[in-house]
């Protein structure tokens, strides 16, 4: 099934939940409302026309231009995206789902944005969500075991955020 058809199915089924879409890229995507993510994902997995039985990857992307001079020309507002790459073994098609999040929950710095976990739908999501939490700082609510996966457990901050500040010291070791 072509991406246009998949998007048409989603549009028909969910309507305003689909907040944005882009077809003229290598990987066409739709962005959906965060609150309805689980519903959309369940549909994508279980609908006989779609059957997305494989979650390839979950990625976090931080859209922020830290340089204030370049910020007006950056072409985007500061925000965070979570990208889900899906595949279907049954129908051999692929699709990309995006969530567009604020960088901080309620605009308060330090409050991580929340996303419902899709662990219950695809078991693969477990470690991918832990990694996205660890490096990009997205809080997956309902995750069975949301700990840091790569960095040390007592690490501060989320390094792949563009405004991350490098540690000066860790356990008595000079950082730079």
């Amino acid at each position: 099934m072509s991406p246009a058809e998949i998007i048409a199915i989603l549009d028909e089924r969910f309507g305003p939940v689909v907040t944005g879409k882009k077809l003229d890229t290598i990987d066409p995507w739709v962005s959906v409302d965060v609150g309805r993510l689980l519903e959309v994902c369940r549909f994508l997995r279980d609908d006989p026309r779609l059957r997305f039985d494989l979650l390839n990857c979950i990625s976090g992307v931080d859209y922020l231009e830290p340089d204030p001079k370049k910020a007006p020309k950056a072409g985007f507002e500061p925000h965070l995206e979570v990208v889900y790459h899906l595949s279907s073994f049954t129908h051999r098609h692929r699709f990309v789902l995006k969530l567009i999040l604020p960088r901080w929950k309620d605009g308060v710095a330090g409050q991580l944005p929340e996303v419902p976990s899709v662990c219950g739908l695809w078991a693969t999501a477990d470690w991918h969500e832990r990694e996205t939490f660890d490096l990009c700082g997205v809080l997956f609510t309902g995750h069975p075991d949301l700990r840091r996966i790569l960095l040390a457990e007592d690490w501060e901050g989320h390094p792949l955020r563009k405004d991350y500040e490098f540690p000066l010291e860790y356990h008595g070791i000079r950082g730079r």
Partner: protein
Amino acid sequence: MGMMEGRWEEGFVTTTLEQAINWARQGSLWPMTFGLACCAIEMMATGASRYDIDRFGAGAFRATPRQADLMIVAGTVNFKMADRVRRLYHQMPEPKFVIAMGACTCGGGPYYKYGYNVVKGVDLVVPVDVYVPGCPPRPEALLEGLMRVQDKVRAMKDLTKGQPLNLPVPKRTGSVLLPEELATPEKALEFQTKNKEQAKPSKA
């Protein structure tokens, strides 16, 4: 047995006990099996038949720090690992030696600027005896580093003074054999001017 000072007399050799101990110790430095990143591949190559670190008595890679006296830190040390590296170092019995192998362990290497999680040199974690630069160093370089450790062992005055006194002066550092036209400074200058002359574009 050149370092064994003394004379042969009816099958006896005389030396000091200290020198004998140092001689034995330098010939059986047991490294710890401990590879953190790509340098470990080169360390394995050093241990394998082509380079054969066993020629220098350091081929017995021990799987526990309790039996090892040489720690070859082969690879990038990140902050999460640094605690473990330090603990392994403390678990080794005295006397113990550390070789920092590769650019990452010498000073952060390619991760110096943007590596938020990389320790900028393992000497911030454990005391280092010999640095072996390179990315990764050739097995020959690691062997050279091992020889520097052996020099250090040979200079130890464990028995009499308690501590190694004089730092080792590199004794085997080879000088680079230059080609004939660069052998002396005069020849090199002549070679350079000749080259420059040749490099000038002809105005024909």
